[in-house]
């Protein structure tokens, strides 16, 4: 029965891909080589499908579905965490940031690793010792189960939905940019594949898809770094000397610095690429983002859930150590991926395909393999594209599983049917229904949000996780006086302030500001054009002429964009919450919302009387520290 469903699903995905073929537009992969990309995609999808097919037989109970029966080893879980965590945003995004902005991009990557210190030291093992399937299980242990399950589940659904939307939209755009498949079709293919893995294989299949993806990602990175670094004899200073001396890098820095770069020598421009300040202009913003990363990771439901898949606290520890080795190793080598792309492909060419720099790693792969016309170059590009695709599917699968468990395990079994016995069959059925619902929602949101700028949604997901989930989990585990009042207030205040501050932040679109800027561009255009035209008439050599002609074309292009903006916001004066300009200047709310979240948990606890939370403290504290009962259950 289940196998037939799986077969239907495979046929469905294949049909969607077939439908996609006539709808091809131009992507980074040339038409001539598209078959190669599909071949690599096909091999990877087939292998993950095979794993799902094997896993489907092992999913019999709710524990199998949510946590693979607790039978994942520390090593496996470490790879799966890396696969769950290294989303396309970090894989392609950070390599892109480094390729365009140098040092600042690399500095940004540090926070993603440091986050795991918090997870390792204070979160992973206690959660393994007292948790079962979900984040709310931890909250419900000593607090009122009904109330904390409701707020916990709502927060998990909120965080997962933000993250999921960013992944679906990002994934759709990515697949379109890479191979030119229509946006809607890529969203559907990603959604259907992910549903297949989760629905039939539960956590077992999700774990293996994440492991496969992490192994592919690490392999791709190692190959690229080898190619980039070999010419410099694996010497770090020689490699950086090449970066500093590269004309493309110097040109990019000159472009970023504008007038300030005129007095600098080429050597100074190149060196500037290795110094801070090209991307991050507001230091407070960066600190705020760092806080959201470092504390938010420990509150991400799909990451927390991974610790319930291992049998003991020791294995949970081992899995974080492995994850830190893999994730950290990956981010260290992004400096070679990003800077390698900067010197080999060049910032100008990277921005040509994608203004945000996301195509730096794929284009680098194509370059090191021999370029756009070579078989090896296109094989490499296809491989990196397939890794990016697997990345999206693996992360989305983890997120959907986390959201579905919050709905089925916390809300349905824990709240709606809290007074009745729920049979294992019913639990698995509820989990599967919730999975289909969340999956369908993800596809729907993905299609509805086409063309929206969703980059800040990942940061928002981290901010909510850091401001609501993290204070609640941390304090219920370590603070005796924490209770139901604190958890409920903390979840509400943390979530609402994080979202509220983003709604009034510079992340939103402010039509009046946009229009004023656009009007300024339109007004200044004639003068700019006249000056450039005069320079052009006076210019003698062809290179300068070409440059000036390009600048004149650029002005015309700017005017077109500005006029389009004026037209787009013709009838709008305010942002979606009715503001003319941002009320709150930080792009990431962490700096304010994280302390507020903690404060809410503390005040809520102090002003609420809850005997159960107090009575259960000794039990929780003894168990989270030692693993009494948890370890025994695993041994039997």
């Amino acid at each position: 029965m289940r196998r037939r469903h799986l077969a239907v699903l495979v046929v469905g995905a294949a049909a969607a891909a077939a439908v996609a073929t006539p709808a091809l537009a131009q992507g980074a992969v040339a038409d001539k080589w598209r078959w190669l990309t599909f071949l690599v995609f096909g091999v990877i999808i087939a292998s993950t499908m095979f794993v799902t097919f094997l896993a489907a037989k092992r999913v019999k109970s709710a524990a199998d579905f949510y946590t693979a029966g607790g039978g994942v080893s520390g090593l496996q879980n470490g790879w799966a965490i890396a696969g769950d965590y290294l989303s396309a945003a970090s894989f392609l995004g950070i390599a892109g940031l480094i390729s365009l902005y140098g040092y600042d991009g690399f500095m940004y990557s540090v926070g993603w690793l440091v986050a795991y210190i918090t997870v390792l030291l204070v979160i992973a093992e206690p959660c393994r010792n007292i948790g079962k399937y979900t984040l709310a299980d931890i909250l419900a242990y000593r607090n009122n189960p009904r109330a904390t399950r409701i707020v916990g589940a709502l927060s998990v659904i909120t965080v997962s939905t933000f993250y999921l939307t960013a992944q679906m939209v990002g994934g759709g755009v990515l697949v379109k940019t890479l191979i030119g498949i229509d946006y809607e079709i890529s969203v559907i293919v990603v959604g259907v594949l992910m549903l297949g893995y989760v629905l039939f294989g539960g956590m077992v299949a999700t774990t293996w898809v994440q492991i496969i993806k992490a192994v592919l990602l690490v392999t791709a990175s190692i190959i690229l770094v080898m190619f980039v670094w070999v010419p410099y004899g694996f010497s770090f200073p020689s490699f950086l000397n090449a970066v500093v001396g590269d004309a493309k890098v110097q040109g990019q820095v000159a472009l970023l610095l504008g007038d300030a770069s005129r007095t600098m020598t080429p050597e100074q421009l190149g060196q500037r690429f290795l110094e801070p300040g090209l991307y991050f202009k507001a230091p407070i913003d960066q600190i705020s983002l760092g806080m959201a990363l470092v504390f938010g990771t420990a509150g991400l439901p799909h990451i927390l859930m991974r610790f319930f898949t291992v049998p003991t606290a020791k294995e949970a520890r081992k899995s974080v150590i492995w994850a830190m080795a893999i994730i950290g190793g990956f981010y260290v080598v992004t400096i070679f991926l990003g800077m390698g792309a900067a010197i080999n492909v060049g910032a100008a060419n990277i921005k040509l395909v994608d203004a945000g720099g996301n195509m730096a790693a794929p284009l680098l792969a194509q370059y090191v393999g021999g370029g756009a016309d070579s078989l090896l170059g296109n094989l490499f590009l296809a491989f990196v594209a397939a890794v990016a695709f697997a990345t999206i599917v693996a992360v989305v699968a983890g997120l959907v599983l986390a959201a579905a468990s919050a709905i089925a395990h916390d809300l349905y079994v824990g709240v709606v049917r809290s007074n009745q016995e729920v049979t294992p069959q019913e639990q698995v059925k509820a989990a599967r229904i919730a999975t289909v619902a969340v999956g369908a929602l993800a596809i729907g949101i993905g299609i509805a949000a086409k063309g929206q700028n969703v980059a800040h949604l990942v940061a928002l997901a981290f901010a909510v996780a850091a401001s609501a989930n993290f204070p609640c989990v941390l304090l219920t585990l370590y603070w005796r006086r924490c209770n139901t009042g604190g958890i409920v207030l903390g979840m509400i205040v943390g979530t609402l302030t994080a979202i509220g501050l983003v709604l009034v932040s510079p992340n939103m679109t402010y039509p009046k500001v946009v229009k004023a800027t656009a009007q300024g561009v339109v007004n200044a255009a004639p003068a700019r054009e006249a000056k450039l035209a005069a320079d052009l008439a006076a210019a003698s050599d062809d290179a300068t002429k070409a440059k000036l002609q390009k600048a004149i074309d650029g002005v015309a292009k700017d005017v077109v964009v500005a006029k389009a903006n004026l037209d787009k916001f013709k009838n709008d004066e305010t942002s979606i919450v009715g503001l003319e300009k941002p009320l709150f200047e930080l792009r990431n709310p962490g700096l304010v919302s994280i302390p507020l979240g903690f404060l809410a948990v503390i005040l809520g606890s102090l002003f609420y009387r809850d005997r159960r939370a107090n009575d259960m403290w000794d039990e929780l504290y003894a168990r989270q520290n030692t693993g009494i009962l948890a370890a025994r259950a695993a041994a039997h």
Partner: protein
Amino acid sequence: MAQGSTLDWQRIVADPRFQALHRKKTSFLWGLMVFSIVYYFLLPIGAAYFQDIYKIKVWGPVNVGLLFALSEFIVAWGIAFIYSRRANSEFDAMAGELIRDAEKIGGRQ
């Protein structure tokens, strides 16, 4: 979660061995935690307010800023190593003893 009622947790928490484990873990864990957070935030703070120091070249084009950023990775791995060594050798043994004797300390017979 009801299985917890089979043991007298108050007695387990009061046991000197649990208290010893608790004391050792608390100071060790939070000490590492505070150190790692301070060390991490020094990087963006330095990049914002001490750019001149970050620009000093020490090894060819390699400057202080790059070395500091790379050191963040080394420090993170170092903390992971230090913690896991201590936990594997010391905390696990202490917890294991408590798990073994949980019935004896907190049994309700």
